[in-house]
């Protein structure tokens, strides 16, 4: 939409808005930047600059518990992303491409609930359920929980993509005697691929970041990096946490740029 001259805010208002805008950006970025800067400080005290040093990174990579939890995090994130992307994409197809089937309305409602439910409630629900059915808590239970909240996010992203896609191309493929599988493989899937990848990246990010739900359904010896760090922060703050934080922010940034690149590629 182009802006009409007459609709623009007055010059004074606009200047105020700009001031507020840059202030908000400073508010959003300065805290993260400070953590990143201090992760390279040699001082043992978190808030004091002690010259450039990589000692906290060395210590982080040498910390066996931390590395074990990082390994768990990556394992859980990988599998929960793959499984939830497949299930979520199929669910989005079912809702967007097929208008009438048994239980469609209920499914539509259930699918959106994990997105709006507060983390704490979801965590409580899953803990009660897992203990009730006697499922041992550990890496497996964390994976099951992550898939449960990720399916919905993937389905929403893919569905948005499907909604913008003209079914005419699929009909054309069918008219040319393509089988359903061939139509899906060669027409539908390539067209919704940005949505599938975007949903997958969102699932990956959510899985890598989750603290609350994981801290409820984790078991002895099987925790994830964010939950481990959360425990550390609650005890004492050490510069090592700055290094881990920088690592996690870097991972998030890579994922943002990956998802932007996917959307660009249209």
């Amino acid at each position, binding site marked *: *939409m182009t*802006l*009409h*001259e007459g*609709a*623009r*805010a007055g010059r004074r208002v*606009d200047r105020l*808005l700009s001031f*507020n*805008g840059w202030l908000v950006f400073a508010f*959003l*970025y300065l*805290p*993260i930047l*400070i953590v990143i800067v201090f992760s390279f400080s040699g001082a043992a005290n978190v*808030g*004091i600059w002690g010259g450039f040093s990589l000692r906290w990174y060395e210590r982080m990579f040498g910390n066996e518990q931390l590395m074990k939890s990082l390994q768990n995090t990556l394992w859980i994130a990988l599998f929960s992303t793959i499984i939830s992307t*497949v299930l979520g994409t*199929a*669910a989005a*197809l*079912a809702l967007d*491409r*097929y*208008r009438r*089937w*048994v239980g*469609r309305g209920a*499914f539509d409602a*259930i699918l959106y*609930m*994990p997105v709006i*439910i*507060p983390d*704490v*409630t979801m965590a*409580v*629900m*899953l803990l009660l*359920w897992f203990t*009730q059915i006697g499922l041992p808590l550990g890496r497996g239970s964390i994976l099951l929980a992550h898939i*449960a909240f990720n*399916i*919905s996010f993937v*389905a929403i992203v893919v569905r948005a993509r499907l909604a913008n896609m003209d*079914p005419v191309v699929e*009909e054309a493929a069918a008219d040319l005697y393509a089988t359903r599988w061939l139509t899906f493989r060669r027409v539908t899937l390539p067209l919704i691929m940005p949505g599938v990848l975007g949903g997958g990246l969102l699932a990956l990010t959510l899985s*890598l970041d989750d603290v*609350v739900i994981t801290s409820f359904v984790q078991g002895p010896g099987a925790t994830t990096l964010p939950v481990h*760090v*959360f425990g550390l922060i*609650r005890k004492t*703050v050490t510069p090592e946490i*700055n290094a881990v934080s920088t690592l*996690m*922010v870097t991972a*998030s*940034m890579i994922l943002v740029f990956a998802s*932007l690149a996917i959307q660009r590629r249209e």
Partner: protein
Amino acid sequence: MTMLREQDDSPQEAVNPELERKAERRESWRGFFHAVPAYVYLIVFFVLPLFVVFVFSFASRGRTGRPILENWNLDGWTRLGDPLVSTIVGRSLFVAVLNTFLCLIIGYAFAYWIATRPKQSTRTLLLILVLIPFWSNFLVRTYAWRLLLDSDGYITQLGEWTGLWGRMLFTLPAVFLGLLYGFLPFMVLPLYAAIERIDWSLVEAGRDLYASGTKAFLKITLPLSRPGIIAGSILVFIPSLGAYVTPDILGGAKTTLLGNFIVTQFGAARNWPFGSALSSAILIVMVAATILYFRSGARTV
């Protein structure tokens, strides 16, 4: 509408309604089969757990705090009326409402500013700058404030230097700062989407008819951005109400919110039935808020 419908002029379809019905039934099964894996998964790992929480809220409390499925009672629910509980619920509601309001005021001005930049490339760039903190790890972002607000943190030093504030860590203002910081991007994105879609010629028409800038904003721009306001408010209000990480890291004993209180019931307090009742209560509020959202959304869109 089905995915691969026959052409409308297909003679078969016109002649044989039986065949058409059969095809329709087949389509319906196909849709169902696509959904089945996710459907079953969500029933097993979402709907049944939801049901269990509700059932357990009526169970009695065992010695370890785990629920015993006999002597069904309403204790968990009646405890919601305790003065201690109502203080915490009241505080959580206050925090969630005020945080939503603060995010709305700051986020609106911010989203409006981004959406009214004349060049598309500027808008895209600014939006990417909002997306980065939005995608960044929530725990890390909260932890950053733990550093800033600690006794030798920069914010504390600034406050002491100006004489305006002291150490804020473990107080309610610190929790507010953390929540505002954590959830502001959730408000900005839907607001931006709504404001960017506004047809500015309507605002211009208002101005041509001698509406003042303020009046045109209140009567035209603001109502047109209502879907964004509602979506953003829901996205901030629900997680603020159930917040756990932020008050845990930045708050203290006097700033316990509903989220922390629920977690305590499953940990130190060992009262799972009461914790289940609290969770069910949050769920009910959430469902009510969502229904309100879809109702008002339906009216405006």
